[in-house]
Structures are given as structure tokens and as C-alpha cells.
């Protein structure tokens, strides 16, 4: 029944489609929905998915890798460097303290020191997937809680490499005697090299990613962008992530960590937003799959056999992790509500535990029973913490007076600008320059990769991409943007952009470039208020200068030019308001309007162009004076 890959896909997708909306409706996070779907379709409830759940888990771990890549994209290298103290401090304190306490707990429970150590390592790790997904869903990245969680998780991702290195040392058996096929699962090229060379290889591969990011990925993306075939960009994005992961596995590093590094390197490139919006759907799907697989892998037989033992272990591990996190939060002076969020948020055991535990099992450190018990507990903590978090948010936090309302912008998230500038040609770049001279750094989107490249060299923050894609606009931060400037050249693209923005983000102020009068009519009819005709101000200025050369006074021309522009814009609005019923009438109206304008200009001419401008006119006074003079002289 489970043979066909199509059938499996249907089961997974249907499970997700049923459970996730249900969880959302109940106000739970989507993670919980996926886990429920996994349990439901897993071997112990409906039995649609059997042993292959394990393989799917491995495959779906790739979602975590992609997530780390995307997170890396959000963090510019210099911000990453600024975070180093938090990462080392909080992360180090959490991992060390948790391991220490957990070791004593397992030691007391009578496990051997190898088993206790392995377990304590597994317990010290939290779930990057669950935590970051929740943070993103609830938009908590910019809180101190979000930043602290992220720092700790990052440290864990790094320390897991050392853990995987230490585990073989705990094994009493010679690693070389392992059966080859099992061994290959976690083996890498460097296994048999001396430690010094291993370290060197790791350093070389990290440097390789950084260098490739600068000098291989970006040029490649530029070449691909020039073809303007969008799926090629998707392909290259996937290729980059796959490539990095492969390299990392080759040298025995965590692929997630490598992907994170790759993301950081590309964070300053112009493709940042494009990569984000391209990989986002893959990441979401794979993560969903990952959570389903976790749900499906919960072994209910183990639970049934020893419900109290498992329950006790589950309870004590969550309590232990929570206590340590609470202490770390206190040590780093988090406010009470943030500390509680952190305490619950990271209290689960993470997906790396699956890797650690099965690795230790292969090395005969753990018995099959010990591994199964711990795997079940891991999955259960993952399922339980979202529920605890929900209870915390609903029952405890509202009763704490210290709710942190101000969202402190944290060190690592690149600043989100208040202005988005679409189109950075000659028109847009002038706007960008002037804004910049006032300290307003707009987020710039452009679809010409050559130009993007050039402008980035000039120091502008320009991102490559098609701005009529709502996801790209979203990753450029349209949700928080105050103003969207459209400086696009093509009227059709401009209209498309306005349509989608008006529909989804009606509160963003739109300031739009219009090619000419007729495009301006259409924009006005679409409800755009701020329209800038490129053929108005400049042409009038030029005409003024021509007239000045012919001897007209500049100040008079200046005032008349303002009048002219004002009249022209009034007539534009009048015409747009009288929305024509059919094309013919429209043309008729336009003609009429032009005739009107001609008439106005004719009147200007008749009155010596000074219509509406009798100011500083001494002529009338002189006439009156002359009349008075005559009167006087006529008197006898």
C-alpha cells in the first residue's frame, strides 16, 4: 500500500493540508499541526507511513539546511561578527550547564558514563527547526528573546561538530571494524587523517565557502540573471545550497552550519532578496515534511511498554533544560517575560539528537533500547514544547506586568528601510541619490543585473529582482514600508506593480513615475494620488530657459512656469475624473482639453502673458495719477 511514491506524496500533503489549518484555527503553531499530521499518518495510527519515515526524516533535514541558509542571508557579516559575544556567551553557558546537569541526572539513573555523556550531549541541543519556524511565524525575530534563541542555536550548530568528533572516542570498539555500509552513513573523507590535518581541512573548506561566495556564486548568479530565465535562478540557488551541504558532509561539518555561512557571505550581494524569495517555498515544504517525519517516527510501542519511565524522563529533561535556560536568561539580564519565552522556546531536544543517537548506536555506545527510548523522548519534547509555549503565552505571560512592548532592533537583522525604490535607471537613481543625501537609504529593486552590479560598486544598496513579484516585495520589507517609489520605465510594468501593491498593501504610500499625460490618466484612474510626469517639469524648465535667452525676465518666467504646471495638473485631474464611457469620448475629451489649454495660452499671449499676474503693476496707479493731474490742470 505504501509502495508508490505518488501515494506517499498524497498522504503527506493531505495530512499537512488537514492538520495544519486545524492547528492554526485552534491558535497553535503550524509546527504542531505538522507533528499531528505525522503521528496521524504514522505507523501507529493510520499506518500510511511505515519504516520509510526514517529516510524521509533524513531527506527532510534538508529543510533545516535551507532555513539556515536563509537565516544567513539575513545577517550581514559585520553584524554576525558583532554577535560573537552573545553566541559564545549564551550558547556556551547553555550547552555546558545543560550537559553538566544532564550528566548527573543520567548518572544517577544508573547509566554508564559513556551513555550518560552521549545522552547529555543530545539533551543539550535544541531544535533549530521548531524554534526558528515559530519565531518567524510569530514575528519575534527582533525581540531579545528571538536574538538570544538564535545565538544559542547557532552555538549548538557549531558545537555539534565537536560532539560528533568526541563520540567515537567513547566507543570501546575499533571504528575500523564497523561494517562498511553502516559506517558510510556518517563517514567522511577525513576520518583516518590525523587530527591536525582534519582541522586544516575544515578551515580550508570554510575559507572555500567564503571565497566561492564572493568570486563564484555572485558572478554565476549575474550570468544567470542576464539570461532572464527565472527558473535558472531557482536552479542556481538550489545548486549553491546543495553544493555547500555536500562539501560540508565531505569534511564532516554540519551542512546546516555550512549553509548558514554561505548565506552570510551572500547577504551583502544584490541577489539576497531574490534568493530568499526563491528558496522560501522549498524551505517551508521541506520543514513541514521534516516535522511530519518527526511525528511519524514517534515509537508508540516503546511508550506503551514503559509509559511511566518515558513520562518521567520526558518531564525531567524538559524541566532540566528549562531551568538551565531560565538561569542563562537571568545571567544575561533578559526581562522576565523574554526569559520565560526563551525558557520554554528552547526546552525541546533538537533534530541533531537523531543524528547523534543513531551514530552512537552504530558505535555500540548505546543499546537499541536506549536509543529507541531517547528517540521517542526527543520526538515527544518536540511535540510538547509548542504546547507548553502556547500555555505560557496564554496563561502566564498576560499576568506578568513586564511585557516588553518596545521592539528593540537587534544587532543581527539587517536594517529594514522605510522606503522602497523600484527601478534604478536614470530616473530612479536621481531619486535615490537625493534621498540618500538626506540620510534616507531606500531599499532599491532593479531588474538589470549589470546595472545592479555597477551601482553596488558605487556603494548603493541595490537588490536584483522582478519587483512585480509580491514575495520579492515582501522580502524587501513592504509590510513595514512607508513609501513605495515606482521609477519604472515601462507603463505596463508600473501598472502591474501598482495593482498588486494596492491589493495587498493598500496602506503603503505610492509615488509613481508616469511617462506622459496618457499614462498619468490611467494611474489617476487606478487611484494613485502622487504622480510624477517625467515630461512636465523638465520641459517647462527648458522652455523657460529658452524664453530667458530671448530676453524674458527670469523671475517672471519662474512664476509663469509654476502657474503653467499647476494649470496643467489641474486639467489632468479634471480629465481623469470625468472618466470616459468609451474610447471615442475619451479622445474627444482629450482634444477638448488640449483646445482649452491652447485657449488659455492664447489668452496669456493676448494679455502680454501676464494673465493672473498683475502684481507689482504700477501702470494702473500711474493712470489714476495722470487722470488726477488732468483734473487739476483743468480747474480754473
Amino acid at each position, binding site marked *: 500500500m505504501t509502495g508508490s511514491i505518488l501515494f506517499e506524496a498524497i498522504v503527506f500533503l493531505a495530512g499537512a493540508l488537514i492538520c495544519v489549518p486545524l492547528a492554526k484555527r485552534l491558535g497553535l503553531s503550524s509546527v504542531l499541526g505538522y507533528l499531528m499530521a505525522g503521528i496521524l499518518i504514522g505507523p501507529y495510527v493510520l499506518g500510511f507511513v511505515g519504516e520509510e519515515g526514517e529516510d524521509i526524516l533524513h531527506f527532510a533535514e534538508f529543510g533545516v539546511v535551507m532555513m539556515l541558509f536563509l537565516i544567513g542571508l539575513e545577517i550581514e557579516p559585520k553584524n554576525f561578527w558583532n554577535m560573537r559575544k552573545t553566541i559564545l556567551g549564551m550558547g556556551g553557558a547553555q550547552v555546558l550547564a545543560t550537559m553538566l546537569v544532564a550528566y548527573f541526572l543520567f548518572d544517577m539513573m544508573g547509566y554508564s558514563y559513556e551513555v550518560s555523556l552521549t545522552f547529555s550531549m543530545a539533551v543539550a541541543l535544541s531544535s533549530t527547526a521548531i524554534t526558528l519556524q515559530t519565531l518567524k511565524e510569530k514575528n519575534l525575530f527582533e525581540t531579545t528573546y528571538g536574538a538570544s534563541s538564535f545565538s544559542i542555536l547557532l552555538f549548538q550548530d557549531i558545537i555539534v561538530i565537536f560532539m560528533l568528533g568526541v563520540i567515537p572516542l567513547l566507543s570501546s570498539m575499533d571504528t575500523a571494524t564497523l561494517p562498511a555500509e553502516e559506517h558510510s552513513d556518517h563517514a567522511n573523507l577525513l576520518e583516518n587523517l590525523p587530527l591536525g590535518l582534519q582541522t586544516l581541512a575544515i578551515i580550508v573548506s570554510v575559507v572555500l565557502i567564503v571565497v566561492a561566495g564572493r568570486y563564484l556564486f555572485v558572478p554565476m548568479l549575474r550570468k544567470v540573471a542576464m539570461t532572464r530565465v527565472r527558473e535558472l535562478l531557482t536552479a542556481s540557488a538550489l545548486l549553491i545550497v546543495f553544493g555547500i551541504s555536500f562539501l560540508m558532509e565531505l569534511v564532516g561539518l554540519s551542512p546546516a552550519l555550512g549553509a548558514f555561512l554561505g548565506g552570510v557571505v551572500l547577504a551583502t550581494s544584490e541577489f539576497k532578496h531574490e534568493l530568499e524569495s526563491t528558496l522560501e517555498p522549498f524551505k517551508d515544504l521541506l520543514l513541514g515534511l521534516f516535522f511530519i517525519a518527526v511525528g511519524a517516527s514517534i515509537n508508540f510501542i516503546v511508550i506503551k511498554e514503559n509509559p511511566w519511565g518515558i513520562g518521567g524522563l520526558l518531564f525531567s529533561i524538559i524541566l532540566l533544560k528549562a531551568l538551565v535556560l531560565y538561569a542563562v536568561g537571568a545571567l544575561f539580564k533578559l526581562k522576565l517575560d523574554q526569559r520565560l519565552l526563551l525558557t520554554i522556546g528552547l526546552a525541546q531536544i533538537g533534530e541533531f539528537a537523531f543524528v547523534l543517537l543513531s551514530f552512537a548506536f552504530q558505535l555500540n555506545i548505546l543499546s537499541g533500547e536506549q536509543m529507541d527510548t531517547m528517540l521517542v523522548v526527543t520526538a515527544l519534547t518536540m511535540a510538547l514544547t509548542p504546547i507548553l509555549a502556547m500555555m505560557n503565552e496564554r496563561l502566564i505571560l498576560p499576568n506578568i506586568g513586564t511585557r516588553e512592548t518596545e521592539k528593540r532592533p537587534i544587532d543581527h537583522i539587517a536594517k529594514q528601510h522605510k522606503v522602497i525604490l523600484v527601478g534604478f535607471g536614470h530616473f530612479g537613481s536621481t531619486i535615490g541619490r537625493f534621498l540618500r543625501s538626506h540620510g534616507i537609504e531606500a531599499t532599491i529593486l532593479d531588474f538589470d543585473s549589470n546595472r545592479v552590479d555597477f551601482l553596488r560598486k558605487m556603494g548603493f544598496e541595490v537588490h536584483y529582482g522582478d519587483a512585480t513579484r509580491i514575495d520579492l516585495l515582501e522580502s524587501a520589507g513592504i509590510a513595514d514600508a512607508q513609501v513605495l517609489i515606482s521609477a519604472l520605465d515601462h507603463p505596463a510594468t508600473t501598472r502591474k506593480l501598482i495593482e498588486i501593491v494596492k491589493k495587498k498593501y493598500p496602506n503603503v504610500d505610492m509615488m509613481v513615475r508616469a511617462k506622459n499625460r496618457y499614462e498619468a490618466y490611467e494611474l489617476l484612474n487606478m487611484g494613485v494620488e502622487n504622480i510624477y510626469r517625467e515630461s512636465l517639469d523638465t520641459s517647462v524648465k527648458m522652455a523657460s530657459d529658452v524664453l530667458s535667452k530671448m530676453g524674458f*525676465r527670469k523671475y517672471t518666467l519662474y512664476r509663469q512656469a509654476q502657474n503653467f504646471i499647476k494649470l496643467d495638473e489641474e486639467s489632468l485631474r479634471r480629465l481623469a475624473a470625468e472618466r470616459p464611457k468609451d474610447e471615442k469620448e475619451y479622445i474627444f475629451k482629450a482634444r477638448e482639453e488640449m483646445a482649452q489649454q491652447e485657449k488659455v495660452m492664447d489668452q496669456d499671449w493676448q494679455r502680454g502673458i501676464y494673465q493672473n499676474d498683475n502684481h507689482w503693476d504700477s501702470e494702473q*496707479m500711474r493712470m*489714476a495719477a495722470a487722470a488726477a493731474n488732468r483734473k487739476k490742470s483743468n480747474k480754473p
Partner: protein
Amino acid sequence: MNSILILFAHPKFEQSRTNKMLVGEIEKMKGVTFHDLYEHYPDFHINISFEKELLAQHDIVVWHHPMYWYSCPPLMKQWIDLVLEYNWAYGPDGKALLNKKCLNVITTGGSRELYCSEGSNHYSVNEFLRPFEQTARLCGMQYLPPFAIMGTHRLSDDELLDMGRQYAQMLQFLQDDCSPQAMKDCSMLNDLEQLNT
């Protein structure tokens, strides 16, 4: 020879019969720089450093403008506001204009008889020009009596031409000698003996 800078402000010069005549007589004079503010700065965006340089190159500054509502046109005021900077024109280090001479050349529609305590304008031209006088004084400049072409509404073309020539003569006189001694009895430079011989 004293060099003269004429700062001319008229928002509608092309329609001013009087000022066209006046300017025509002095525009090309040797040693006189005629600076048309409204033509240079139609958008009121005054180039301050350029203006300072001009001031530095001249000994006598003339504010030439029509009298509008008992004061100068707005661009002239803008010029005063922007160019006469603290610690450049005035203030403890403001020595740039020290000992230069300064005066107003004005045109008024009303005649001189109207500008007195009995007339409808109630005050004399000198009294209306007090803000300029004090501005000059604060900048360490010597404020000379004004030169005024008054009652322009009733002046014939010939009379205007005559006034233009007087204006030129007056500038020439200032170029040669503008010691306070020479004009100590004049409330207006129009009264100089040299112009009325």
C-alpha cells in the same frame, strides 16, 4: 576711485518705466557693477559665497529697489538674511564689511511731500529706511543718505531721463569722494549741490 556694487531688486523690472530708465543710465558705467538679483535668483536660491565675494571686491554697496509697502521687495530681504552672516558681516569676528559705504537708492510712487509728518505716509523716507541704516551700522558700514526718485507716477519721460542722469552723476560723485563731510547737510543725496548745478 571707489568701486560700486549695485544690488538691484525688482520683481517686475520689465514693467517698470522708471527703473528701466534709471538702470539704463548707470548699468554700463565704469567702476560700477550692476547686479540684478531677480534675474540671478528667480527661485530665491541665493549663491551666498558668490555674493560675499562680490561684496569683498567693492567699496560702496547700493541697495537699489522700489519701495513696496514701505520696505524692499522680498528677494532683497532674502539677500540680507542670507548673505550678511554672523561672524562674517557682524558679530565678534564679522569684519568683512568694515568701513565700506552703503546706501539705498529707491523709487516711490508717492512724492516727497507725501513722505513727511503732514503727508499721507506720515514718515519721511529716511525714517522708513531705518532698518537698512541699522543693518549697515551693525555690519560696521557707513550708511549714507538715500538717493530717491519720488512721485514716479507723475514724472514725464523727460523728467525721468533727467533723474537717470542725476543717478549717474551721484554715483560718479561717490566714486571720487564720499567722505561724510561732503554730504553732511543732505537728508537725501538728491540734495547734493553737485547734482543741482
